[in-house]
């Protein structure tokens, strides 16, 4: 169990920089997701933490050790690979027991540990099988078992659920959260699936183009996305983003776009008049009355709610989310209200920073409480 710290970590492959000056500090016992689109450097970051790649510059720290020059086996980590990477020629039992064998654990003790892990993951009946005789979900659990059989300081998981079908994925999400709660170990979880990141993590590190975009608890990433990229990446259906202009009269900011003009909440000192972007989540659009005119273009019925895409006068499209009983026919003209207190304003450009002044009053409910690690530390010291 240990904290993990990246300091100014950069990784270059030839002329290509896969990870740019990453600063990330993961608390002891925390479940952190690295979330981002494919190719954003998540796996590279994880592999550097594992010791499978070496940073071009910067330091990586696990616990109180700088691990830059340590081989993977010396870092006291365990990793679950997206491809599972089970040893095809070994039985399930031998696969799970391999990390113990490599650390010189005696046979009797090893078998006991394997049996215990297999029990935990419901693999007991499969111990004598070879990996190719298992289903995807079973293989996934064996891969997990191989990581769990030891008690490493940090667990690294690289998209462990992405090869499972949707139902099993939902089940394993719950299992993993439960496992994390029970073990209390630091876990670094790579995923491109925001649902996984949102539901499982204490904090999410959103990455794009090799750069960290935001590192915050899920609720905060959702409610206060640090920039336009995070805003567009998090949430399904996505936040509506409308490019327009910001103007200030008498201390009040107004956002203007064709067919749309609305006052926006208090902004930070960085805000300047000029091009900006308005962001509105679908649940903050109400249809019925309001100053904005629109035409219903698409209605997607998901059962308990309807997703409505509305064309605005200026040509922009807006996504709204309404409870199922409310429905409209296509082509119908409607009036809308965009809730100004929940509207986001971002600076110009694809990574324009969020300009809203943070809410002082509404404290965000987060799962992760940094204080909770302290008693654990003491417990570890007592043991």
């Amino acid at each position, binding site marked *: 169990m240990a904290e993990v710290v990246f300091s100014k970590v950069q990784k270059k492959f030839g002329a290509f920089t896969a990870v740019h000056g990453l600063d990330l500090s993961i608390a002891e016992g925390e479940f952190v997701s690295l979330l981002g689109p494919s190719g954003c450097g998540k796996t590279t970051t994880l592999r550097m933490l594992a010791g499978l790649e070496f940073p071009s510059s910067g330091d990586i720290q696990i616990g109180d050790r700088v691990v830059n020059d340590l081989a993977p086996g010396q870092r006291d980590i365990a*990793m679950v690979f997206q491809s599972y990477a089970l*040893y095809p020629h070994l039985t399930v039992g031998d696969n799970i027991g391999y990390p113990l064998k490599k650390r010189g654990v005696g046979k009797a003790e090893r078998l006991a540990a394997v049996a215990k892990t297999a029990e935990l993951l419901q693999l007991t009946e499969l111990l004598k099988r070879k990996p190719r005789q298992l289903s995807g979900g079973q293989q996934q659990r064996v891969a997990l078992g191989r990581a769990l059989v030891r008690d490493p300081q940090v667990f690294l998981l690289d998209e462990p659920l992405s090869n499972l079908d949707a139902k099993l994925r939902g089940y394993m999400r719950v299992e993993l959260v439960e496992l994390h709660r029970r073990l209390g170990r630091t876990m670094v979880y790579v995923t491109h699936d925001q649902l996984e990141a949102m539901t499982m993590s204490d904090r999410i590190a959103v990455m794009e183009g090799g750069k960290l975009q935001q590192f915050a608890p899920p609720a905060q990433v959702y409610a206060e996305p640090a920039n336009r990229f995070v805003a567009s990446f998090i949430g399904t259906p996505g936040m509506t983003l409308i490019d327009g202009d910001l103007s200030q009269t008498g201390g009040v900011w107004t956002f203007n776009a064709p067919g749309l003009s609305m006052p926006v909440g208090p902004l930070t000192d960085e805000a300047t008049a000029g091009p900006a972007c308005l962001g509105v989540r679908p649940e903050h659009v109400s249809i019925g009355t309001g100053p904005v005119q629109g035409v219903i273009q698409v209605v997607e019925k998901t059962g308990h709610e309807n997703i409505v895409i509305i064309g605005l006068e200026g040509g922009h499209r807006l996504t709204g989310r309404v409870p199922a009983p409310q429905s409209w026919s296509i082509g119908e003209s409607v009036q809308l209200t965009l809730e100004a207190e929940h509207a986001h304003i971002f600076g110009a450009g694809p990574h324009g920073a969020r300009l809203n002044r943070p809410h002082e009053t509404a404290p965000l409910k987060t799962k992760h409480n940094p204080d909770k690690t302290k008693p654990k530390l003491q417990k570890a010291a007592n043991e």
Partner: protein
Amino acid sequence: MLTFRKILFNLMAWSIVLAVAFPLFWMLVTSVKPGFELFRRPPTILPETWTFEHYWKLLSETNFLIYFRNSIILSSATTLVVVAVATLGAFSLVRFKYRGRESLAFLVLFTYLLPSVVLIIPLYLLLVGLGVSNTIFSLVIAYTTFALPYALWLLRSFMAGIPEDLESAALCDGATRMGAFRDVILPQLLPGIISTALFTFILSWNEYLYALVLVNSDSSRPLTTGVMNMLISSFNIEWSLLMAASVMMSVPLIIVFAFLQSYLTRGFGAGGVKG
């Protein structure tokens, strides 16, 4: 129409099989015919009297067994050296990243493209310089020069088919680089190693030119040149003995093939298929 095509196909297949098999059959038959039956016209398809005197004569009165032993030592040693070096070399070419990796691989292949005749004189001088000329060991070195590039390329493609994650997983699980190689890579590579070993063994077993030029003492001649030297002169060819020798020369290959055949076919399929 369909049956006609089927018949035609079968006919062609069988004529090819016959064309390949008939010389082998004739070799076998000739080796057990008594000498006087050999040149009779019309020839007898099956011998009228069967005899194993040629075999007996080869084994008891000639150097055949010495040559046989030399060939076994030579081919096994070459196979061992080539497979060991090629496996590690292929591992390096596939897994380590260094400048000139690709060029190195092509350079190695390029040596394979040079005709043996060009290489043989420099090689001979080199071996004389090393003071090992006219020994089985010198042939092991010579054979390695032509078998290694081929083996390296074969194993390289096998190696490239092994997912890198397997090795990464072993490293994370606490294995050293060498440990991961032994525990994870080698077992996966086994079909590739066996096919490579088989090809190398056959190449060495049948090699003639290098053996002819580099070795000229009976104590270190392999079967190919040994048998030629002993049974074929300008005046006479001992057909019966030659055929008996040929049969016995084929036996080790047949045995090796029979044992490893399943591995070999598996090996041919590997590389492209994962899992």
